[in-house]
């Protein structure tokens, strides 16, 4: 029987990567993500894997492109400013149809910002982590257990659709310890790798992993094909959790760390007789519009709570499409909102 262990979120991400069959990690240290690199630097050599601290974030992401292009499970991790540096490589990975996992343990921005927890990279992760027409899968854990569970999920889903996947975490989830259970013997379900450029001993036609198309019509065709796959992702991979939303007048929408705070606020509101509920997106792309739609009949108002100036609220407004009021509460710069602040907002809306 697997036992519960206590781990920091960052360490759980590292252990989960090993259990998911990832044997190639390329990173560069940055607070508040560094425990993940530190964990893998100790553990990877013991399982015959490669831990490589690159000379820069840009080098690390290009190593991921090369390794993942040969068909192995490869991962990198960083925090906000480092993710910006990786954005060129992420675009190349998407343009090469290569599955890989990128972890962002967010801190305050823009610029070097702060080292405290933040969700200000929502737009970057879901709209434009690099140039060009592309999306990446974005998973938003809210517990240390989910930090562990979503690594294998990210690899499996990335391979299924041949696209990069991001785990969008933050400094709070990375630094905190909670009980976590790892499965007994993790089964690794690697996807089809027949496209990989991994050597063929002249037994087959060689594979090419590349993102360059000189002819515009070739590129257009490639991008359109990719977007057909994105439609499948949107149809099949939306994930979310609904907590007390069935009869809720006020539906709070929050992900990751701010969903933890919001859950406390929703409980406090219920104790005061206010019908509040929490809708928690787990996939930020694809956005869980189908489950959110189910709340539209009963909800009177929506409150979006984020650790930024209001980014996900745009996706909520798109989904609600003017049918109900959508309000916002957020703290930014590395400040975590308190349950009391969110409760005050809910109470004001309930009047």
């Amino acid at each position, binding site marked *: 029987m697997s036992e519960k262990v*206590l781990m920091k979120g960052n360490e759980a991400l590292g252990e989960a990567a090993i259990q998911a069959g990832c044997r190639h990690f390329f990173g560069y240290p940055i607070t*508040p993500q560094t425990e993940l690199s530190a964990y893998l630097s100790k553990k990877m050599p013991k399982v015959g894997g490669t831990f490589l601290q690159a000379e820069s974030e840009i080098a690390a992401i290009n190593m991921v492109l090369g390794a993942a292009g040969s068909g192995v499970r490869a991962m990198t991790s960083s925090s906000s400013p480092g993710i910006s540096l990786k954005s060129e490589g992420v675009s190349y990975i998407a343009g090469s149809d290569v599955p890989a996992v990128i972890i962002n343990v967010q801190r305050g921005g823009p610029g070097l910002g702060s080292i405290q927890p933040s969700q200000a990279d929502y737009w970057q992760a879901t709209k434009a982590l690099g140039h060009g027409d592309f999306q990446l899968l974005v998973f938003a854990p809210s517990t240390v257990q989910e930090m562990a569970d979503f690594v294998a999920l990210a690899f499996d889903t990335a391979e299924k659709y041949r696209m990069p996947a991001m785990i969008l975490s933050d400094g709070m989830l990375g630094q*905190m310890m909670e009980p976590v259970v790892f499965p007994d013997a993790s089964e690794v379900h690697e996807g089809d790798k027949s496209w990989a450029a991994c050597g063929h001993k002249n037994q087959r036609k060689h594979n090419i992993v590349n993102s360059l198309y000189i002819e515009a019509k070739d590129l257009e065709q490639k991008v359109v094909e990719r977007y057909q796959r994105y439609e499948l992702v949107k149809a099949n991979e939306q994930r979310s959790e609904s907590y007390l939303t069935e009869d809720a007048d006020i539906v709070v929408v929050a992900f990751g760390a701010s969903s933890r705070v919001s859950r406390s606020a929703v409980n406090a509101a219920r104790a005061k007789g206010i019908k509040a509920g929490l809708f928690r997106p787990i996939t930020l792309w694809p956005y869980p519009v189908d489950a959110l739609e189910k709340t539209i009949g009963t909800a009177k108002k929506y409150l979006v709570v984020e650790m930024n100036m209001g980014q996900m609220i745009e996706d909520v407004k798109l989904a609600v499409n003017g049918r109900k009021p959508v309000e916002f509460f957020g703290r930014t710069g590395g400040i975590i909102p308190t349950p009391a602040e969110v409760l005050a907002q809910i109470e004001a809306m309930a009047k």
Partner: protein
Amino acid sequence: MANTMNVLLAGFGGQGILFTGKVMVYGALTEGKELSWLPSYGPEMRGGTCNCSVVISDEAIGSPLVTNPDVLVAMNRPSLEKFVNSVVPGGTILVDSSTVDIKVERTDVTVYYVPATTLADKNGLKGLANIILLGKLYKEMKFISKESLDKGLQKCIPAKKAEMLEFNKKALEIGMEQ
């Protein structure tokens, strides 16, 4: 104990704030409780003030960041000044009275003054004021069984430093006598 206990441990870096929190959550883990341990990180770790949020509960934990503690443990004056008004009415404050030279003026909380640093030094337990305070906290709150707390302590002390376990156990006993 109430269903959920929110604890804020605060002091200088190096006083064993994070360690104290770890002993609590490892103890709670052996009882299968829900728990979270969230350290302040960054500049605090490098010599300034340090604090640690610990939540132990029978239910799934919402915010792991403790902003309104049921229990505040203050090991230095800046921490007491900073957090004294955030404690919930009816809450509990533990003060290391050998390092904090002010009193709590609130009348709606229960305050225990323990000269933990002095007690530690007197008993040859230098650096274990944190565990003495944990002993007092345990005596007043009884959030897990004593057996589980001892297990938590064992879990946090590496086997190759086994001699430290005895010192810590002694510190815990001293705290529980206060």
